[in-house]
């Protein structure tokens, strides 16, 4: 199995919980967003406070947690959105 590097971004309250706005994680690819969530919750102490099923985006598109993640992708965890 190959290993990919994924750029992770946290926003708003999640950035406060994680204590950072970005990080990079290595995952076995092909992976899913759910794999990245698990990885991040284990790797970053504050990220354990993120929900197990957060709203997520891959490469700036809303996705479900079973969406595929590949090497070089940008995965963002988004608190419930409240625009407008």
């Amino acid at each position, binding site marked *: 199995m190959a290993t990919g590097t994924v750029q992770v971004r946290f926003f708003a*309250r999640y950035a406060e919980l994680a204590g950072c706005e970005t990080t990079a994680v290595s995952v076995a690819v092909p992976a899913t967003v759910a794999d990245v969530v698990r990885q991040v919750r284990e790797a970053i102490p504050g990220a354990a406070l993120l929900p197990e099923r957060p*709203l997520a985006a891959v490469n700036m598109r809303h996705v479900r947690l079973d969406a595929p993640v590949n090497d070089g992708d940008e995965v*963002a965890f988004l608190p419930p959105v*409240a625009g407008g």
Partner: protein
Amino acid sequence: MTYLTRDPIVVSALIAEVAAPQCGGTCVFLGTVRDAPQDGGVTGIEYSAYEAMAVAELDRLLAEARKRWPETRLAVRHRLGLVPTEEASIGIAAAAPHRTAAFEACRYVIEEAKKRLPIWKKELRADGTALWVDPAGRPAVVGPEGTP
């Protein structure tokens, strides 16, 4: 297209952007920061965004609206940073040959923007505290079509 701004939203500029001689109806929506006396008063809201994705998402949802109401001209502005009470955080203008399309397209854009734009609010209370707004009843996971 400059959708995001840190300056006050100028309605007349939005309207000028969509004006055209073939358009007989223009619908404008402004979302404004409202006071909440029951929460001890709100002085403003600090808006933050995943900016590149907010722009991409607005591109997508305006393209959807233009496909659905083909002759409609649309302009959107979302303000970021501190927006004081009574000022607009979002402005949408939709101009169309006939008013039904203008109303429907304008409504579509605000409804989709509320659901999809990666933008967050921190409410600034009169007592000096600040609170992330977590829209009640909003599912934690939203798929590409807004389904959980």
